[in-house]
Structure formats: structure tokens, C-alpha cells
């Protein structure tokens, strides 16, 4: 029946049908209980309507077994909802290892995306079908939120930190992108499109447009420009640890704590070098706050990540 307007969103990702299945389960449970209560109220209100002004109904204090029953059964149902929802949630927050990483920088009131090949987009994101895509996101100002209804994913985009979301598109098409965390005057204008293409078409699009330098290469040139090489060389120096093979490793810090060297750690180390000093090193690294942009940080991180593969190649 074509009403001329949609009542249900498209399913365009691997996650969509899973979320919808859980949704329909909850709808079914809800319809059941709403019907039960409405019916009970209606039937009781009619059947037991007052027939004489001086009626004295028999007082009923309660029944323990009923209280237990209508506590335990609903609790059981909510536990099903909880577990099922938690499993989906866990999967939403655990991208596959082979995900294609795309960087997103949000700011009032636009979205900037950069592909690893260097291709940049504004308010638009091209992705291939059948390939997990992981977005590494940060904000330049206030909290935003990257929301793709057709893919059933959303994630707040924070200033000063990276957050990520992943999806795998299953249906070619153009889908809505909304900012879903109120961010000021043009919040409802901070929208865009996600274009899901067949892999071959995606490759064509990638090479078709203005070829950018890849993110890794951009990161490499920033690494040189800011003089990072001075202290962070292969094999390490007295001044700073080597960054080859660093990403993903557990790092021992001064004071005995450890931290996993993820994107947030690297970003913090560039902007706030004293926050987490590696054990055995002096706190001499200068801060690059104000010198490097959010895009630059993402490129540097891409470069540092690439040192893992380079190390594997050389060793």
C-alpha cells in the first residue's frame, strides 16, 4: 500500500535487519501487554459498573502468587530484551578487523570525511557495498552525532577525543546522514548523504575524483614537517620511543600504569605530551596544540599505524 510517505526506514546494512527483528519482538510484547491492560480495564469497567449507589464490593487485599507471577514473567521478558539488545550493541561496538577506515571531522555545521587514499568529501560519504567501513570521528567544537537511520547506527562525535562507529552497507543507494546531537543554530542543517556503491563503482569513484595524497603520505609529511623524526626514530633514541609497531600495543607508563596505544592515546600524546609519559623517558616532548588541525592529527595517526606494517615488512 503506497501511502506516498514512508512508515518504516529502509534496511541498508547488515545490522539493520538484526535491529529490526529485535524491534518487532518488543513491538509484539508491547502490543500484547497494551491489549491485555486495555481489554482488562474495558471489560472490568463495563462488567463491574456501579449499579446501585450503596454497593459494597467485597474487599480483596491481594494475592501473593499473582504479585510474584506478574513480577517474574515481565522480568523474564525484559531479560530477553536486555541480552538480545546487549549482543547487538556489542557487535555495533566491535568492528571487524578488515574494516575500511574513514576519518570524519564534524564541526558546526558540516561533516568532513577523508578516505585513506586522501579523497575528501564534505557532507557526503561514498562507501562500498559488502565491505565493513569504520569511521574514526572527532569534533572541532561541540558535541555532534553521526546518525545513519538506514544503517541503524549512530555515535556521538566529541571534541578532544575520537569515537568510532562501523557499518557494512548491503544495498546500493543514497541514504540520509543526520547530526543527532543538538549542536547549535544550524543543527537541523548539519545533514548529508551516504552513497553506497557497488565495489567496482566505488573504486571508479575513488580514482575518478581529484586524487589526493593518501592519508598515510600526508601524515608522513607532517611527521617530517613537525620534526617528530628528531626524537622518534626507528630503534628509538634517548629522547623518545620508537613508534614502529606501537599502535595497538600496551605501553608501560611512568608511575606503573599501562595504557593501550590507540588513536586517543596518540592524539593525547601529541597535544598533551605530559599526560602519559612512557616509562624510562624524560618529559621533554613539546606540545603541538594549536599547530596541527584535527585532520592533520588523523593523518599523523594513519601514518603511525602504517609503521606497524612497515616494521613487519622490514623485520
Amino acid at each position, binding site marked *: 500500500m503506497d501511502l506516498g510517505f514512508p512508515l518504516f526506514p529502509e534496511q541498508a546494512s547488515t545490522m539493520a535487519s538484526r535491529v529490526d527483528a529485535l524491534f518487532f519482538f518488543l513491538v509484539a510484547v508491547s502490543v500484547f501487554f497494551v491489549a491485555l491492560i486495555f481489554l482488562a480495564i474495558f471489560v472490568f469497567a463495563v462488567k463491574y459498573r456501579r449499579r446501585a449507589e450503596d454497593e459494597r464490593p467485597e474487599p480483596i487485599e491481594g494475592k501473593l502468587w499473582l504479585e510474584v507471577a506478574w513480577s517474574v514473567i515481565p522480568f523474564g521478558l525484559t531479560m530477553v530484551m536486555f541480552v538480545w539488545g546487549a549482543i547487538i550493541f556489542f557487535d555495533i561496538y566491535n568492528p571487524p578487523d578488515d574494516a575500511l577506515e574513514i576519518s570524519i571531522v564534524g564541526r558546526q555545521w558540516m561533516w568532513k570525511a577523508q578516505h585513506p587514499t586522501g579523497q575528501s568529501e564534505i557532507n557526503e560519504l561514498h562507501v562500498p557495498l559488502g565491505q565493513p567501513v569504520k569511521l574514526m570521528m572527532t569534533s572541532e567544537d561541540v558535541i555532534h552525532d553521526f546518525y545513519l537511520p538506514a544503517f541503524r547506527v549512530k555515535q556521538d562525535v566529541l571534541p578532544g577525543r575520537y569515537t568510532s562507529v562501523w557499518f557494512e552497507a548491503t544495498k546500493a543507494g543514497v541514504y540520509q546522514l543526520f547530526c543527532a546531537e543538538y549542536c547549535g543554530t544550524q543543527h537541523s542543517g548539519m545533514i548529508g548523504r551516504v552513497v553506497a556503491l557497488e565495489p567496482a563503482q566505488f573504486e571508479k569513484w575513488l580514482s575518478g575524483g581529484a586524487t589526493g595524497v593518501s592519508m598515510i603520505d600526508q601524515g608522513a609529511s607532517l611527521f617530517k614537517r613537525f620534526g617528530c623524526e628528531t626524537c622518534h626514530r626507528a630503534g628509538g633514541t634517548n629522547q623518545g620511543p620508537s613508534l614502529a609497531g606501537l599502535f595497538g600495543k600496551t605501553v608501560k607508563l611512568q*608511575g606503573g600504569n599501562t595504557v593501550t596505544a590507540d588513536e586517543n592515546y596518540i592524539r593525547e600524546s601529541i597535544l*598533551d*605530551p*605530559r*599526560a602519559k609519559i612512557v616509562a624510562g623517558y624524560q*618529559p621533554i616532548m613539546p*606540545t603541538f596544540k594549536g599547530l596541527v588541525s584535527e585532520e592533520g592529527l588523523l593523518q599523523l595517526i594513519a601514518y603511525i599505524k602504517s609503521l606497524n606494517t612497515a616494521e613487519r615488512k622490514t623485520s
Partner: protein
Amino acid sequence: MSKVEAFRQHHFEDVEQQHEASWLGMWVFLATEVMFFGGMFACYFVYRHWYLQAFASASNHLDVLLGGINTAVLICSSFTMALAVHSAETARRKPLIAFLLLTIVLGLLFLGIKFYEYHTKFEEHLVPGSSFRFEASLARPAEIFFSFYFAMTGMHAVHMIIGIGLLTALIFKARRGRFSAAYHTPVELTGLYWHFVDIVWIFLFPLLYLVGRHL
């Protein structure tokens, strides 16, 4: 009507009910104060956990001697307050007024020292805002430390000022002979409040002044 009955408000059945209600009311109020300060303490703990080195460095810029003196001053003031309550219980008006006055003096001494400390912080460019200056690599979290320092001790000072106001009102009432062995609830309740404000400081002092200090 007995002297005691004169103080019973019309909606209470007897003086005992009124007294119990007043006590419960003050304890509930103190519970709200715990939650109020608790919110700030919670934020403080989070940031201290993240930025321990900066917090320790910033904390070392606070004057432990003055803070320690202030702690002693407040503890003494709680003692004089307790003596005031005892005087009220034993219906000794002159000692009551004297101890209330002494408590106020100690409270004012505390505030005086506190504001002197604020003044030196201002001179040392440690007040958060555009004039804040600190060692570059620790400056950001250090500014957060000082934000908490001023917010928490400032909020505590506001409570002290209110307490001093209450004590002043008590002195006026005492001089008019309002209190007796049978009725001195306002003195007891103000005592409770004063002790609470003291306890807040007992937590604030080590948390703000003694981060990372070694004896």
C-alpha cells in the same frame, strides 16, 4: 501555659513532637548538603585520577601552613560551638553568648585567612581565566585544579558566612532570653550545621592541600 508550652507551635501536638521534627528536618537538610558538595567532590576525584601529576604540582602551590592553621581554627570553633550548646542546655546565658561570640570570631578568622590566601593566589596568577600562568605542559589540568580549589573552598566559605549569620541571630535571641533548658533547639540545630561545615573542610583540606606531599 508553662514556659515550655509557650514555644510550641500551633500545629504540633506537644513540644517533644516539635523538637523531634526539627531535628529530623536538620538531618535531612544536611543530607542534601552532602549531595551538593558530593557532586563537586565526584568531579574533583575524576580529574585528580586523570591528571594526578598536574594536580600534585598545583596543590604544592597552596600554603599548607595557612591551610593547616585554618583547619585548627575550625576545629576549635566546633569546640566552642559545642560549649555553646552545652551552655544552652544548662541554661547559662552569659557563657552561651560568650561561646557563640567566640565561634563567630574563629569563623571570621578562618574567612580572613582564606581571603588572604585568595589574594596571594591572585598575585601569583593562579586564578583560572585569562591571567592564569603555570608551567606549560601541566597548565591545562592545573587550571582545572584551581577551578576546583576556588569553587569548592568558595562554596564552603559561603556556607561559613551563612553559619556566621545564623550564630549572630542566635546571639540576639539569646540576649532576649529566648532560650532555656527546656527549649534551645535553634542552638542545637545551628551546632549541627556548624559541625557539618567543619567536616566539609576536614575533607577539603587534605584533598586540595596535601596532594602528593611527603612529610
